[in-house]
Protein backbone atom coordinates (compact mmCIF):
# COMPACT_ATOMS: atom_id res chain seq x y z
CA UNK A 1 0.00 0.00 0.00
CA UNK A 2 2.59 2.56 1.01
CA UNK A 3 4.98 1.33 -1.72
CA UNK A 4 2.46 2.14 -4.48
CA UNK A 5 1.82 5.51 -2.80
CA UNK A 6 5.53 6.26 -2.92
CA UNK A 7 5.81 5.27 -6.58
CA UNK A 8 2.81 7.35 -7.72
CA UNK A 9 3.75 10.39 -5.62
CA UNK A 10 7.37 10.04 -6.72
CA UNK A 11 6.43 10.13 -10.41
CA UNK A 12 4.29 13.25 -9.96
CA UNK A 13 6.87 15.11 -7.88
CA UNK A 14 9.69 14.14 -10.24
CA UNK A 15 7.77 15.45 -13.26
CA UNK A 16 6.97 18.62 -11.33
CA UNK A 17 10.61 19.30 -10.48
CA UNK A 18 11.72 18.60 -14.07
CA UNK A 19 9.16 21.12 -15.36
CA UNK A 20 10.31 23.69 -12.81
CA UNK A 21 13.92 23.15 -13.90
CA UNK A 22 12.91 23.66 -17.55
CA UNK A 23 11.15 26.86 -16.52
CA UNK A 24 14.31 28.11 -14.80
CA UNK A 25 16.47 27.29 -17.83
CA UNK A 26 13.93 29.09 -20.00
CA UNK A 27 14.32 32.18 -17.83
CA UNK A 28 18.04 32.19 -18.59
CA UNK A 29 17.90 31.34 -22.28
CA UNK A 30 15.00 33.38 -23.67
CA UNK A 31 15.80 36.87 -25.00
CA UNK A 32 13.40 39.45 -23.47
CA UNK A 33 10.88 40.10 -20.68
CA UNK A 34 7.84 38.89 -22.61
CA UNK A 35 9.27 35.57 -23.79
CA UNK A 36 10.69 34.99 -20.32
CA UNK A 37 7.33 35.45 -18.72
CA UNK A 38 6.00 32.80 -21.14
CA UNK A 39 8.38 30.34 -19.49
CA UNK A 40 7.76 31.70 -16.00
CA UNK A 41 3.96 31.64 -16.11
CA UNK A 42 3.17 28.36 -17.87
CA UNK A 43 5.88 25.95 -16.83
CA UNK A 44 6.08 26.94 -13.18
CA UNK A 45 2.27 26.70 -12.89
CA UNK A 46 2.23 23.14 -14.17
CA UNK A 47 5.32 22.27 -12.09
CA UNK A 48 3.78 23.48 -8.82
CA UNK A 49 0.48 21.81 -9.76
CA UNK A 50 2.21 18.49 -10.35
CA UNK A 51 4.14 18.62 -7.05
CA UNK A 52 0.97 19.48 -5.10
CA UNK A 53 -1.03 16.69 -6.79
CA UNK A 54 1.75 14.22 -5.94
CA UNK A 55 1.67 15.25 -2.28
CA UNK A 56 -2.13 15.01 -2.21
CA UNK A 57 -2.11 11.49 -3.71
CA UNK A 58 0.61 10.34 -1.29
CA UNK A 59 -1.42 11.30 1.78
CA UNK A 60 -4.68 9.96 0.29
CA UNK A 61 -3.23 6.53 -0.50
CA UNK A 62 -0.86 5.96 2.40
CA UNK A 63 -2.80 7.52 5.28
CA UNK A 64 -6.31 7.98 3.91
CA UNK A 65 -6.11 11.70 4.69
CA UNK A 66 -7.66 14.01 2.09
CA UNK A 67 -6.15 17.47 2.43
CA UNK A 68 -8.47 20.26 1.32
CA UNK A 69 -5.69 22.79 1.85
CA UNK A 70 -3.63 21.27 -0.99
CA UNK A 71 -6.66 21.52 -3.33
CA UNK A 72 -7.06 25.17 -2.30
CA UNK A 73 -3.36 25.73 -2.99
CA UNK A 74 -3.74 24.34 -6.51
CA UNK A 75 -6.77 26.56 -7.16
CA UNK A 76 -5.02 29.70 -5.88
CA UNK A 77 -1.89 29.05 -7.97
CA UNK A 78 -4.11 28.64 -11.04
CA UNK A 79 -5.98 31.86 -10.32
CA UNK A 80 -2.99 34.07 -9.55
CA UNK A 81 -0.14 32.97 -11.87
CA UNK A 82 -1.63 34.15 -15.22
CA UNK A 83 -2.81 37.43 -13.68
CA UNK A 84 0.67 38.08 -12.29
CA UNK A 85 2.23 37.40 -15.71
CA UNK A 86 -0.30 39.75 -17.35
CA UNK A 87 0.39 42.56 -14.90
CA UNK A 88 4.18 42.23 -15.15
CA UNK A 89 4.06 42.27 -18.98
CA UNK A 90 1.73 45.24 -19.03
CA UNK A 91 3.90 47.20 -16.59
CA UNK A 92 7.00 46.35 -18.63
CA UNK A 93 5.31 47.56 -21.82
CA UNK A 94 4.12 50.76 -20.15
CA UNK A 95 7.66 51.59 -19.03
CA UNK A 96 8.94 51.11 -22.61
CA UNK A 97 10.87 47.89 -22.19
CA UNK A 98 11.77 46.92 -25.79
CA UNK A 99 10.98 43.62 -27.50
CA UNK A 100 13.81 41.60 -29.05
CA UNK A 101 15.15 42.52 -32.49
CA UNK A 102 13.69 39.40 -34.06
CA UNK A 103 10.16 40.50 -33.21
CA UNK A 104 7.85 40.35 -36.19
CA UNK A 105 5.22 42.98 -35.49
CA UNK A 106 3.89 45.13 -32.69
CA UNK A 107 0.26 46.24 -32.89
CA UNK A 108 0.10 47.42 -29.32
CA UNK A 109 2.53 50.28 -29.98
CA UNK A 110 0.06 52.33 -32.04
CA UNK A 111 -2.60 51.90 -29.40
CA UNK A 112 -0.45 53.11 -26.51
CA UNK A 113 0.96 56.03 -28.53
CA UNK A 114 -2.51 57.19 -29.43
CA UNK A 115 -3.59 56.89 -25.82
CA UNK A 116 -0.65 58.86 -24.42
CA UNK A 117 -1.27 61.57 -27.04
CA UNK A 118 -4.86 61.88 -25.83
CA UNK A 119 -3.65 62.20 -22.24
CA UNK A 120 -1.19 64.95 -23.16
CA UNK A 121 -3.73 67.06 -25.01
Amino acid at each position, binding site marked *: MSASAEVIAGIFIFVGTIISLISAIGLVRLPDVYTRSHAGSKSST*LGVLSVLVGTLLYFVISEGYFSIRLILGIVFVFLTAPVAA*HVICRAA*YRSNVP*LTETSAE*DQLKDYFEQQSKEVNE
Partner: protein
Amino acid sequence: MSLQITLNLIIAFMWMFLTESYQFPSFLTGFIIGAFLLFLLRRFIPSRFYLYRVWKFVSLILLFIKELIKSNVSIVKLVYQPKRTYNPGIFALPIDLKTNWEIAILTSLISLTPGTLSVAISDDNSLVYIHAMDLQDDKKEIESIKDSFEKAIMEVTR
Protein backbone atom coordinates in the same frame (compact mmCIF):
# COMPACT_ATOMS: atom_id res chain seq x y z
CA MET B 1 -28.82 29.87 -12.70
CA SER B 2 -28.72 30.64 -8.96
CA LEU B 3 -32.54 30.48 -8.90
CA GLN B 4 -32.44 26.94 -10.29
CA ILE B 5 -29.80 25.82 -7.78
CA THR B 6 -31.82 27.30 -4.91
CA LEU B 7 -34.97 25.52 -6.13
CA ASN B 8 -33.08 22.25 -6.37
CA LEU B 9 -31.75 22.62 -2.82
CA ILE B 10 -35.25 23.44 -1.51
CA ILE B 11 -36.65 20.31 -3.18
CA ALA B 12 -33.83 18.23 -1.65
CA PHE B 13 -34.63 19.58 1.84
CA MET B 14 -38.36 18.96 1.30
CA TRP B 15 -37.50 15.36 0.43
CA MET B 16 -35.51 15.07 3.68
CA PHE B 17 -38.46 16.38 5.68
CA LEU B 18 -40.93 14.07 3.85
CA THR B 19 -38.87 10.92 4.46
CA GLU B 20 -37.93 12.07 8.00
CA SER B 21 -34.31 10.93 7.62
CA TYR B 22 -31.66 13.61 7.92
CA GLN B 23 -28.65 11.82 6.48
CA PHE B 24 -26.55 12.57 3.39
CA PRO B 25 -27.99 9.69 1.25
CA SER B 26 -31.54 11.02 1.55
CA PHE B 27 -30.26 14.52 0.68
CA LEU B 28 -28.62 13.06 -2.43
CA THR B 29 -31.83 11.23 -3.40
CA GLY B 30 -33.81 14.43 -2.98
CA PHE B 31 -31.25 16.37 -5.01
CA ILE B 32 -31.43 13.90 -7.92
CA ILE B 33 -35.25 13.96 -7.83
CA GLY B 34 -35.14 17.78 -7.76
CA ALA B 35 -32.80 17.88 -10.76
CA PHE B 36 -35.20 15.56 -12.64
CA LEU B 37 -38.21 17.77 -11.75
CA LEU B 38 -36.36 20.91 -12.88
CA PHE B 39 -35.48 19.15 -16.12
CA LEU B 40 -39.17 18.35 -16.71
CA LEU B 41 -40.22 21.93 -15.91
CA ARG B 42 -37.37 23.63 -17.81
CA ARG B 43 -39.77 25.45 -20.18
CA PHE B 44 -41.22 27.50 -17.31
CA ILE B 45 -37.87 28.57 -15.83
CA PRO B 46 -35.91 31.54 -17.19
CA SER B 47 -32.59 30.68 -18.94
CA ARG B 48 -31.23 27.22 -19.60
CA PHE B 49 -31.32 24.05 -17.52
CA TYR B 50 -28.41 24.58 -15.15
CA LEU B 51 -26.80 21.10 -15.22
CA TYR B 52 -26.11 21.75 -18.92
CA ARG B 53 -23.95 24.70 -17.88
CA VAL B 54 -22.25 22.64 -15.19
CA TRP B 55 -21.40 20.07 -17.85
CA LYS B 56 -20.04 22.79 -20.17
CA PHE B 57 -17.93 24.13 -17.30
CA VAL B 58 -16.40 20.69 -16.68
CA SER B 59 -15.59 20.29 -20.37
CA LEU B 60 -14.00 23.78 -20.37
CA ILE B 61 -11.72 22.71 -17.52
CA LEU B 62 -10.74 19.52 -19.37
CA LEU B 63 -9.97 21.50 -22.56
CA PHE B 64 -7.89 23.88 -20.48
CA ILE B 65 -5.79 21.12 -18.84
CA LYS B 66 -5.12 19.62 -22.29
CA GLU B 67 -3.93 23.00 -23.61
CA LEU B 68 -1.77 23.57 -20.51
CA ILE B 69 0.12 20.31 -21.05
CA LYS B 70 0.54 21.09 -24.78
CA SER B 71 1.89 24.55 -23.93
CA ASN B 72 4.52 23.07 -21.65
CA VAL B 73 5.67 20.69 -24.38
CA SER B 74 6.04 23.63 -26.78
CA ILE B 75 8.02 25.62 -24.16
CA VAL B 76 10.38 22.65 -23.79
CA LYS B 77 10.91 22.59 -27.56
CA LEU B 78 11.67 26.32 -27.66
CA VAL B 79 14.02 26.33 -24.69
CA TYR B 80 16.16 23.46 -25.88
CA GLN B 81 16.55 24.60 -29.49
CA PRO B 82 20.20 25.32 -30.23
CA LYS B 83 19.36 28.37 -32.35
CA ARG B 84 16.55 30.90 -32.05
CA THR B 85 14.27 30.41 -35.01
CA TYR B 86 11.05 31.92 -33.68
CA ASN B 87 9.71 35.45 -34.18
CA PRO B 88 7.83 36.81 -31.18
CA GLY B 89 5.39 39.69 -31.57
CA ILE B 90 2.24 41.35 -30.28
CA PHE B 91 -1.04 41.16 -32.17
CA ALA B 92 -4.57 42.31 -31.44
CA LEU B 93 -7.44 39.85 -31.14
CA PRO B 94 -11.03 41.15 -31.34
CA ILE B 95 -13.37 39.58 -28.79
CA ASP B 96 -17.14 39.46 -28.39
CA LEU B 97 -17.25 38.91 -24.63
CA LYS B 98 -18.85 41.75 -22.71
CA THR B 99 -18.62 41.43 -18.93
CA ASN B 100 -15.37 41.88 -16.98
CA TRP B 101 -15.76 38.45 -15.46
CA GLU B 102 -15.73 36.66 -18.84
CA ILE B 103 -12.78 38.72 -20.07
CA ALA B 104 -10.77 37.92 -16.94
CA ILE B 105 -11.33 34.19 -17.49
CA LEU B 106 -10.43 34.47 -21.18
CA THR B 107 -7.15 36.33 -20.56
CA SER B 108 -6.14 33.86 -17.85
CA LEU B 109 -6.78 30.95 -20.20
CA ILE B 110 -4.86 32.70 -23.01
CA SER B 111 -1.90 33.18 -20.69
CA LEU B 112 -1.76 29.48 -19.85
CA THR B 113 -2.13 28.08 -23.39
CA PRO B 114 0.59 27.36 -25.97
CA GLY B 115 2.68 30.23 -27.26
CA THR B 116 0.45 33.10 -26.14
CA LEU B 117 0.42 35.61 -23.29
CA SER B 118 -2.11 38.39 -22.82
CA VAL B 119 -0.34 41.75 -22.43
CA ALA B 120 -3.08 44.39 -22.39
CA ILE B 121 -6.80 44.97 -22.90
CA SER B 122 -8.08 48.03 -24.74
CA ASP B 123 -10.20 50.48 -22.77
CA ASP B 124 -13.46 49.65 -24.55
CA ASN B 125 -13.02 45.89 -23.85
CA SER B 126 -13.11 45.05 -27.57
CA LEU B 127 -9.48 44.00 -28.20
CA VAL B 128 -7.06 41.78 -26.33
CA TYR B 129 -3.38 42.33 -27.14
CA ILE B 130 -1.58 39.01 -27.16
CA HIS B 131 2.15 38.40 -27.14
CA ALA B 132 2.81 35.33 -29.29
CA MET B 133 5.96 33.26 -29.23
CA ASP B 134 6.04 32.48 -32.94
CA LEU B 135 3.88 34.87 -34.88
CA GLN B 136 4.37 33.82 -38.49
CA ASP B 137 3.82 30.12 -38.10
CA ASP B 138 0.75 29.70 -36.05
CA LYS B 139 -1.27 32.89 -36.01
CA LYS B 140 -4.20 31.12 -37.67
CA GLU B 141 -3.89 28.24 -35.27
CA ILE B 142 -3.76 30.54 -32.25
CA GLU B 143 -6.85 32.40 -33.40
CA SER B 144 -8.79 29.16 -33.88
CA ILE B 145 -7.87 28.09 -30.33
CA LYS B 146 -9.02 31.46 -29.01
CA ASP B 147 -12.30 31.05 -30.87
CA SER B 148 -12.90 27.68 -29.26
CA PHE B 149 -12.15 29.11 -25.80
CA GLU B 150 -14.40 32.07 -26.39
CA LYS B 151 -17.22 29.81 -27.53
CA ALA B 152 -16.77 27.53 -24.52
CA ILE B 153 -16.84 30.49 -22.11
CA MET B 154 -19.97 31.87 -23.78
CA GLU B 155 -21.72 28.52 -23.43
CA VAL B 156 -20.99 28.58 -19.71
CA THR B 157 -22.03 32.15 -19.00
CA ARG B 158 -25.13 32.62 -21.13
